[in-house]
């Protein structure tokens, strides 16, 4: 696999220390999570349903409050760095009949950068065009958002996050509810972004994909069970700790292990 290995790669892009978070008035969904991602690194966040994957991502972008802990982006302090993270949420609450085109949606990522009482300028339109180009959706820029396939919709939302001028992307279950073609489309886009040194943290249920296509795995269940390269942490012990009874290890005749996870 082609990788651009530069000096920048050694720089920490995102550092999370002792983060605990949860919805108000409910017990904490995740406690004491610490990890760091290097610039350009691609990490998968895995864990069973209800493990707190979405909660972690939402806490990182500030959608739900976090208690204690620190989030730092490129060495910036956590209170100011939130808006520098690009967040691609799960899309089940989106009204796809809404009268907006693809480029309107991507322009929404610019809202904060444009500022109050101002209209989008040429610079914003250029950045939107660039973002669309990077995810290969430029040709569809005048389509109404609902007229796209599942994979295309995901790519548009990735472009919207890129239009925030961020280099750290958080994606919440982008492979949920899309077919294999769409999944390949999204992976292709992510491969292209890796060449541009974009750091990605992606929550997923797909353990196969997570262990084969990512540099780093974060195994989560309320707390961070393991964090490291797939070769180090994708072990029956770690998975058993995360998934409990929902997984079993099948031993093959020639001593290869097969892990079966029912989630």
């Amino acid at each position, binding site marked *: 696999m082609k990788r651009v290995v530069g000096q920048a790669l050694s720089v920490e892009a995102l550092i999370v220390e002792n983060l605990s978070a949860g919805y108000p008035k409910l017990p904490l969904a995740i406690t004491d999570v610490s990890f760091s991602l290097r610039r350009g690194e691609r990490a998968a966040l895995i864990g069973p349903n209800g493990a707190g994957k979405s909660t972690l991502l939402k806490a990182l972008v500030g959608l739900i409050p976090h208690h204690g802990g620190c989030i730092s982006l490129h060495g910036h302090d956590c209170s100011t760095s*939130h808006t520098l993270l690009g967040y691609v949420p799960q899309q089940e609450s*989106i*009204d796809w009949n809404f009268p*907006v085109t693809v480029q309107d949606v991507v322009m929404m990522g610019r809202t904060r950068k444009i500022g109050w*009482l101002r209209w989008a300028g040429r610079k914003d339109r250029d950045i939107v065009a660039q973002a669309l180009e990077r995810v290969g959706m430029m040709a569809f820029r005048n389509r*109404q958002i609902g*007229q796209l396939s599942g994979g295309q919709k995901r790519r548009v939302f990735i472009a919207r996050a890129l239009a925030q001028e961020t280099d750290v992307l958080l994606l919440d279950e982008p492979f949920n509810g899309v077919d294999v073609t769409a999944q390949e489309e999204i992976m292709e886009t992510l491969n292209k972004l890796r060449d541009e040194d974009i750091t990605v943290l992606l929550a997923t249920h797909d353990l196969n994909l997570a262990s084969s296509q990512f540099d780093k795995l974060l195994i989560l269940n309320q707390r961070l069970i393991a964090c490291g390269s797939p070769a180090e942490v994708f072990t029956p012990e770690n998975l058993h700790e995360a998934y409990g009874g929902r997984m079993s290890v099948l031993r093959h005749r020639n001593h290869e292990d097969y892990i079966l996870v029912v989630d």
Partner: protein
Amino acid sequence: MSLQEIFLDPLSREFMQRAIIAALLVGAISGVVGAFVVVRGMSFFGDALAHSVLPGVAVAYIYGGGAAAIPIVSDLLQGIEQESLRLFVGGLMAGIFAALLIGWMTRDERLKDDTAIGVIFVAMFALGLAIISTDERAWGRDLLHILFGNILAVQDVDIYIMLISGVVVIGTILLFYKELLLVSFDVALARSLRLPSEGLRTLLLILIAVTIVASLQTVGIVLMLAMLITPAATAQLITKRMHHLMIVAALIGAFSGVGGAYLAWHLQIQFSPAIVLILTGTFGVSFITIRLTRYKFHNNFT
């Protein structure tokens, strides 16, 4: 009937001129604001808010008749000599109160939106009826005007109120357009960008309230919903971008307003139902045309 009889004769009457201007203004403003009501799925809220202004209008109105129904509010309104302005301020106070109350009740999601809206709106309407029933003159005659509009009684000052409200409402929407669009489409992104999504939602509710109160004299409480929903619903059939939707809805609203005024004149029927029937007719024709031709405007209209 000659063209002169159809188009020019009605204009020779001064009340008719004012009625046409009022219908045009109300149609255009409601079209723009209604675009947000439609894309956000707030029809029920719009109807509720229109009914909720009744107690405010009633207090302002009865004050003119001498009875002070609710002491504090009456005192507040006492300072306003001009009756039209007093009705506007009274209605607006009740409308904003209802909008904020409903917003507050649904904030922690323990109560469903439509439940809170249903509870508050009928209660406000009942309170309004109770206040009006303290005055026999109002109950007997003027309640009808408040409920169904009385466009022929529109004065110059009413036109000014509509104009100023329109400039304020549409100006505010232009100033906060990209933020309002974002919170309407994807509130999660708005919040992750640290935009005050609750504040923007409240702003939108207040704009809807202002539009409703400014339109009361023209269409009345009961038919107000059609002014908000129908032009935008028609526009939604043929547009795919929000600002196009708003412009088309404003045009449909304005033309239907004027068309309704002429229809009312020639058929000798009431103005507000005539306007609503024209609006609905436009919607019906558009809807059926698109269905029959199976032509998806949505794909091709820019």
